[in-house]
């Protein structure tokens, strides 16, 4: 008999990954690690989407995942360009060094 992994397992894993990603964004200081944490959050959503799509036998979830992956790639392109620009002028990518404006 085939053992089918229940959707709940995937969902709990995705929830754990999402929380780890969110904590990473809030706690990490290195801009690149912050981006990686955002990617982790997006991919946890992808995992949840495909798991639910399998449960509902619906294509929408799969399509959503493709769009999320594309958008994530576009976001990384913009984000890395910004990091390069900031590194050129500040010689640092620590987000705590971004304090030009206060108030």
């Amino acid at each position, binding site marked *: 008999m085939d053992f089918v992994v229940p*959707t709940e397992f995937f*969902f709990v894993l*995705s929830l754990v990954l*999402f929380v780890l*990603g*969110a904590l990473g*964004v809030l706690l990490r200081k290195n*801009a690149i690690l*912050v*981006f990686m944490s*955002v990617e982790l*959050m*997006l991919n*946890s*959503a992808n995992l*949840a*989407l495909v*798991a*639910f*799509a399998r*449960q*509902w036998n*619906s294509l*929408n*979830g799969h*399509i*959503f995942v493709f*769009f*999320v992956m594309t*958008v994530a790639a*576009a*976001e990384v392109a*913009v*984000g890395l*360009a*910004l*990091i390069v*620009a*900031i590194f*050129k*002028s*500040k010689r640092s990518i620590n*987000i705590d060094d*971004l304090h*030009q*404006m206060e*108030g």
Partner: protein
Amino acid sequence: MFESPTLQTLTDYNIWIALPAIALAFGTMFLLVIDVFLPANRKHWTPILALVGIGISFLINLFTYNPEQTSTFGGMFVADAFTGFLNIVVLITAFISVLLSTDYLRRTETNHGEYYILLLLSATGAMFMVGANDLIVIFIGLELLSIPLYILSAFRVTYTDDRDATFVLKSEESGMKYFILGAFSSAFLVYGSALLFGATGTTNLREIFAAVGPILESSAENSGALLLLIGAALSLVGLGFKIAAVPFHMWTPDVYEGAPTPITAYMSVAAKVGGFAALFRLMIVGLSGLTLDAGVDPAAWQGTIQVIAAVTLILGNFVALSQTNIKRMLAYSSIAHAGYILMAVAAVGSAGLVPDIANTAAQAGLVYLLAYAFTNLGAFAVVLALENNDGTGTELSDFNGLYNSRPMLALAMALFMFSLTGIPLTAGFMGKWLVFSAAVQAGLIPLTIIGVLTSVISAFYYVRVIVNMFLLTEDEGSPAVGETAPVRYAVYASMAGVLIVGIAVPLVTNLVNMVSLV
């Protein structure tokens, strides 16, 4: 089996109802190609072509404006009075922002064609967002709206050798902060959407609405209701960042201050229009049935929105009091205005069982968005006219004695400040009046009292600008290097808008009174 597409198939699928947005997308792509081939001495054509593109999309929108709801792309995109009206707001915003940009880019030596292309792409994203009827389209529209704005916020960095200049550091910091928090918030929106999809098995908002009722009835044996509630909450967090509602507002002042001023003007309106359109659609079309006791209680989320609205109103207005930089002051003022529009959202949710009142509240929110668009664009246009090339000249003290040196700009700024405060005969008054009366009808008396009181407080910081301009004197008036013809046209257009919305009220209410979301 697949049939080969014909023109007949295209019309059957109603694709023309998305034509305003599609036309702008095509115009942008066209501009992208044209700009490459324009010789260096013809680069000033790019903004003109951008204006033409926006104008064409605007005309198409007027001709296809149809209050009957029609849908296309398999129900993912809908066109109704709501879409048509907010398209107008987005296109006006983009038009005025391009007018503001031309001379600014030239004098700050950041005159690159891709600026206008990114601006139009962002407007396209906003237009897809206002017609979105599907979680996927909301997400894509939001990203298409936001990603160009991350780049544009950092636009003063481009090709500069002077990398230690304060304005360059501020601009790149602005782009970075907007990017990190924007990406963070979209992750919340995507995860929330995933949970809504998991609970209902569909991404279409109308189908979600149909699925919510049965899930709540059978919630004893499944966890669908919990998924729905968490999904709605996470989506609300994601959209709350975009509309800069407290407690998700931390990025706003820094991003608004550091970004190039025309971009600040654009994003203070367009990002809010897109975010609020998605919030209205998702919460009202999709989740208005999400109640604790179906048919008796209003939607479960409306209490949360009321609290967020109240906190946003109080914090936005009080922190604006202590600002000395006009861009930061307008940033906190834009947070406060998000609170007033959230009042309309809460009123729709609270009156969800009485469609008449709910629709009135939704219409009030739309009028407020239009009023806010004209007023904020005008205020930022005046700020831009006074700003020096190195980003200075945006302190409140730089407005001292402006009436003596530049009476026209001072009078315009006074009108915009009156409108932001909500003085009668201006657009801001109309917006506030409609929102407050809708909130009272929906029974949100405490929230309305907070709204009225914070409006009174807001008068302190808005009137301070007027006092600086008219009563204080300065030996040397501001050079107003930015006061050029296009900027002046933008100021006049915004003034006209503020007065028309404020005085010729039926004109606007006729446009929105066909809006029905419930």
